[in-house]
């Protein structure tokens, strides 16, 4: 085992080592761009097993017209241990009087939301811009990252899909489609070190574009996760193998694509509503988004922060989640929906805020929002939006005192080509109060 593998895969088994070797040395494998692993320790593995059990045993709901019973203890801990909440003084009597937070708060001082009583040994940081354009560094932990696997497994059972991948097999393959992306092979310790991959389906990542289908068919993964743009590409690869399910995240999955994917792959295509700040929140089933996490309270607020009655449309606001490194209390997501009750459980309908956007270069090529995100990743921006008018002209609106326009321009022209018409606007105003801020818009 290399030093790097020891760090990335603390529990690596012989089967896991063989799997990594296969994924790395496969004749049709892509050029991986980074090293990444699960970082799961023996103690983490026990916690993950307990988490899966907890997910199965605890329904993600609360009584209509009341608050969840776990909420009081959760808030007690947050107000005692989390500097950002403790600074406010005594907790208001009523939950509805607790001040909300938004992405700006988390973005400015993410460390202020890390509880005093968590050890920093296992801390890891996910950096993201998501779909709102505010750079966010999310303090998290390998148990939380790997918690996405049991969550996925339990969610798929709602669709009659049982995941069984184990040693020597490939479990989840996460596909993207970007000009540049972080890609890596990994293994999943709670599944007997089954293979796990993050891949970019963009042809530039492969020695031969036809290798994509050869590689994936040979691996025969149990599940693909990805965004709708990547799934469009996956559809065109002409794969011979069929996964048990496709999981779409990040942006809205439109019904037309879902139908085509279902027909082509003959499996459930599941739309997951997930946020970097809080992991997977809900899954689309029978016309509504059903909640997933047992300890996540979802409410709908008006622009002034007041709770709206069930059925009224407003901003989705979250309290709870399983990222114990970053407890959220009334976090405004900038996503909009209505909360209704179905079969005695809260569900979200008319969820808006994750529309996929594709831009065009002057040469007529397509670029995804993630390409732009990647290009601007290292710029000192507080927030930005990119709008492409119908004549192709791009307008970047941004805030960030240290940002240099010449660097921003160069980064975007790297993505769109030197002939791209581009306007830069420095501003602090990205959306009117109560309106969703859209990071990427193409007319």
């Amino acid at each position, binding site marked *: 085992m290399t030093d790097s593998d020891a760090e990335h895969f603390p529990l690596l088994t012989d089967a896991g080592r063989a799997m990594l070797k296969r994924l790395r040395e496969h004749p049709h494998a892509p050029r991986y761009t980074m090293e990444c*692993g699960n970082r799961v320790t023996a103690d983490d593995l026990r916690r993950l097993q307990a988490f899966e059990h907890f997910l199965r045993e605890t329904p993600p709901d609360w009584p209509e017209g009341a608050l969840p019973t776990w909420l009081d203890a959760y808030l007690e801990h947050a107000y005692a241990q989390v500097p950002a909440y403790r600074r406010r003084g005594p907790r208001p009597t009523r939950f509805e009087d607790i001040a909300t937070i938004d992405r700006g708060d988390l973005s400015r001082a993410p*460390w202020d939301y890390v509880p*005093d009583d968590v050890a*920093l040994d296992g801390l890891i940081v996910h950096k993201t811009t998501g779909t709102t354009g505010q750079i966010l560094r999310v303090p998290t932990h390998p148990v939380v990252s790997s918690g996405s696997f049991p969550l996925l497994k339990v969610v798929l059972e709602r669709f009659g899909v049982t995941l069984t991948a184990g040693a020597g097999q490939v479990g989840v393959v996460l596909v993207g489609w970007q000009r540049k992306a972080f890609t890596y092979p990994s293994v999943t310790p709670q599944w007997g070190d089954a293979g796990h991959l993050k891949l970019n389906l963009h042809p530039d990542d492969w020695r031969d574009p036809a290798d994509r289908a050869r590689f994936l068919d040979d691996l025969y993964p149990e599940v693909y*996760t990805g965004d709708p743009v990547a799934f469009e590409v996956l559809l065109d690869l002409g794969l011979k193998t069929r996964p048990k399910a496709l999981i779409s995240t990040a942006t809205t999955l439109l019904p037309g694509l879902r139908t085509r994917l279902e027909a082509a792959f003959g499996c459930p295509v599941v739309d997951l509503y997930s946020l970097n700040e809080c992991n997977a929140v809900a899954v689309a089933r029978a016309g509504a988004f059903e909640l997933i996490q047992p300890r996540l309270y979802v409410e709908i607020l008006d622009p002034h922060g007041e709770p709206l009655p069930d059925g009224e449309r407003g901003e989705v606001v979250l309290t709870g989640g399983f990222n114990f490194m970053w407890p959220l209390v009334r976090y405004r997501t900038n996503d909009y929906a209505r909360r209704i009750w179905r079969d005695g459980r809260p569900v979200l309908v008319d969820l808006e805020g994750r529309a996929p956007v594709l831009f065009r270069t002057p040469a007529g090529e397509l670029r995804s929002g993630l390409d732009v995100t990647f290009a601007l990743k290292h710029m000192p921006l507080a927030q930005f939006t990119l709008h492409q008018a119908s004549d192709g002209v791009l307008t970047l609106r941004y805030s960030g005192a240290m940002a240099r326009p010449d660097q921003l321009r160069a980064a975007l022209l790297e993505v769109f080509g030197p002939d791209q018409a581009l306007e830069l606007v420095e501003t602090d105003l990205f959306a009117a109060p109560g309106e969703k801020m859209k990071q990427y818009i193409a007319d």
Partner: protein
Amino acid sequence: MILLPPPSPLLRHYNSLMQLETLLRRIAETPPEFFEAPFVGRSGMVHVGAVVHDTLIELGGPEPAIEQLRDFAPAKADEQERRRLRLALLTCWLLGERGFRSRDLGARALAFLTGSELRELAGLVDAPKLVADPDRREELTRLTLRALGLRPAGETAAQAQDRLATVSSVEAARLFRESQAAEQRAREVREAMARKAAQEAADKAYRE
């Protein structure tokens, strides 16, 4: 059994809000007997413990135990302690406002009356001076509201917190102490985050 519908958001909203002006005026109009000398040992004019007891009952209880009221009937008291008793008395007058009544606020009110914030405020200003000073009136009112878990009508929770931090030297001192205490931990977390951000993260099953 009659099943009542859940309270409407409007009603619940109304219940948590108090008119700041009403409370400020109430302090300004404090009756003279609330400035009388508190009983210390065998001398004094007002039994503060008895007033506290009655106030807590008016707020909806629970009834305090005798031990919980000992703090308000000391055998001896220096000037600082006497000021605290006078301020507790004044706060009881404030808590007598009709909007506070029968709302199960007794436990929170007792915690405030025996807590450090009132003690600190007493160290800064005596009750008669507080009543004469608009900013101090607002400070006591806002500290009391927050301790009860309430806030002024027309303000969001964040606005109420900001205004309290501006007007209250007790709150400013608390925030200062809080930031001092939190500084080392915040630095540790910041440094750990900077260190970890330079490394790669751990893998996830799906993109968020």
